């Protein structure tokens, strides 16, 4: 408090010893000032510290007294405290007892081998992570086979619930996103193609890019953001509260109960969402072509049917189940990595989203190469 900023210090040098008289508040608010004023104290002389006029002394003040004592005694001189009350004595004693004794941990400078080791650990960690994901994929397949053989163990209610969460509730955002992408493509395509008088090819541009790539890729990215994080958060919070361990002790299989319905729901819903995205994208493109280029919906339809092979749609939709598996497995895997604290839940959730989106794009690139090679 500002009102505490008053300390009186008198330094009275005498023959062979110095008397320091303090008064007022000797607290954390004044201790820095006091220390500054005491720097002028002569080294080597005995010091008598008189605290009888001190109205308030806190641990910071007591710490200052103790550091002064250490400083004086380090030069071989004597140090005495006068005029203390019993409570001051007990405070000084307890502070003296717990004066910190600095320790340092030995620090070794980083060498080249440390750097190499770190790189090696990083690479090994990455490989282990991918292997782990493959392991979870295998776990999902084996449990799926088990569910086919023993249908009683399969949770149909849970599957329906997750289909609703993953698929039905994602329809508005996916459709809107895809509609806007169609609009953007038509708009951008039109302004470029108009230069060559080839406006009508905007239909091919929209159809091929949406059906082959953008429809399913952007749907997967949205679903990765929405659903992979939801899987991680749901499974992770169960892991955090030891619900997963409780399931195991009750003889329930977490993979069967938690992973199968979620990943299966995604596997069923993502192609449907992709199809909805395709339609919304084409609709948006057709609308914009009509407004911007005067291509009537009938002309758009004719051009679409004549100029766009159905293989484009197939190439797009065949990727959906693969993306679904990637998103589902990454989400469930990250959920199981959550430790017993909230930070790890947040970390794993954002990691799941990043990993899922990245893996989806990598897979899409591999598909492009594959389809180019087989000439589709």
């Amino acid at each position, binding site marked *: 408090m500002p009102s505490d900023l008053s300390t009186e210090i008198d330094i009275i040098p005498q023959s062979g010893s110095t008397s320091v008289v303090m008064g007022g508040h000797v607290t*954390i*608010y004044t201790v*820095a000032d006091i220390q500054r004023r005491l720097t002028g104290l002569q080294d080597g002389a005995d010091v008598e510290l008189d605290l009888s006029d001190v109205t308030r002394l*806190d*641990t*910071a003040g007591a710490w200052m007294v103790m550091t002064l004592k250490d400083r004086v005694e380090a030069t071989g001189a004597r140090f005495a405290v006068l005029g203390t009350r019993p*409570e001051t004595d007990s405070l000084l004693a307890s502070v003296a007892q*717990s*004066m910190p004794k600095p320790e340092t941990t030995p620090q070794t400078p980083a060498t080249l081998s440390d750097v190499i080791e770190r790189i090696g650990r990083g690479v090994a960690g990455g490989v282990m992570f991918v292997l782990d994901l493959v392991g979870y994929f295998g776990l999902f397949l084996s449990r799926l086979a088990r569910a086919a053989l023993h249908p009683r163990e399969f949770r149909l209610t849970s599957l329906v619930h997750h289909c609703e969460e993953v698929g039905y509730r994602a329809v508005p955002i996916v459709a809107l996103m895809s509609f806007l992408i169609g609009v953007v493509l038509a708009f951008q395509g039109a302004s470029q193609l108009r230069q060559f008088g080839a406006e009508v090819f905007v239909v091919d541009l929209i159809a091929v890019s949406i059906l082959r790539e953008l429809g399913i890729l952007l749907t997967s990215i949205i679903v990765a953001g929405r659903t992979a994080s939801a899987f991680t958060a749901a499974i992770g919070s169960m892991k955090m509260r030891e619900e997963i361990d409780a399931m195991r002790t009750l003889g329930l299989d977490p993979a069967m109960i938690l992973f199968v319905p979620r990943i299966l729901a995604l596997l069923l819903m993502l192609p449907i969402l992709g199809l909805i995205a395709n339609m919304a994208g084409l609709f948006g493109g057709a609308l914009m072509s009509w407004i911007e280029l005067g291509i009537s919906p009938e002309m758009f339809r004719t051009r679409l049917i004549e100029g766009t092979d159905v293989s484009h749609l197939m190439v797009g939709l065949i990727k959906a189940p693969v993306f679904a598996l990637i998103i589902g497995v990454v989400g469930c895997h990250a959920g199981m990595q959550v430790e017993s*604290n909230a930070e790890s839940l947040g970390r794993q959730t954002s990691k799941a989203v990043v990993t899922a989106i990245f893996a989806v794009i990598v897979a899409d690139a591999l598909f492009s190469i594959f389809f180019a090679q087989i000439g589709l």
Partner: protein
Amino acid sequence: MSMTQTPPEAIIQVRGLRNQFGTHVVHDGLDLDVYRGEILGVVGGSGTGKSVLLRTIAGLQTPAEGTITVFGNDLRKMDQTARARIETRWGVMFQDGALFSSLTVRENVEVPMQAIPGLDPTTARALADLKISMVGLPYLAGDKYPSELSGGMRKRAGLARALALDPEIVFLDEPTAGLDPIGAAAFDELIRGLSRSLGLTVFLVTHDLDTLHAICDRIAVLSDRRVLVTGTMQDMLTVDDPWVHDYFHGPRARAALAAQENNTGKDEI
């Protein structure tokens, strides 16, 4: 309460406090005094609003009605700056320490010190080290992050931060919950030692009968939306109320009492 004759200085006065969440009334007409230098233990069944009371006095919860006077100032009638000045005179230790997870323990303890004008970083660091040492943590714990500490160490670090500015009052929310018996006894000892040597007033919420026996000067029992009774441990043993009777005469209470009597016996020898 019949605490009005020749009272010692009441550092906290709560009068007619009412707290409610929606239609759920937690406190109604609650009165409580906390005297300077004492260790007051607040007990009550689950859901009787012990923590809510602590949060209300510490200013984290706005009551629906009633006055809270701390150091003679009515908290609800104060402006921001006066309020902030009062707040440097108390410290709160939350149940799990509530340390800032992105800072080391030492930096956590230094946080309240940043408000002090003219305090140089070297001194602040040395004082933080002193506080860490006073709550019984090893020196190197200061460099660690909260997630690297055990539950008991986090509580100690939380106490070190609460004590950073040498407050006159500390609020402790379940200081020994989740500690093993040895750790809990050591923490009790720590609170009592600090309270005596620093002249602290301690307001603690607890379920731990050993803590009540070992360190509390006075006990306040919350029940039926108010403070049912306050008094020393001896007073509690004679209260008629069925809940209070069960609480202080149950098998655990008797064991704690016996342990305490054994201890005092040993001390006297």
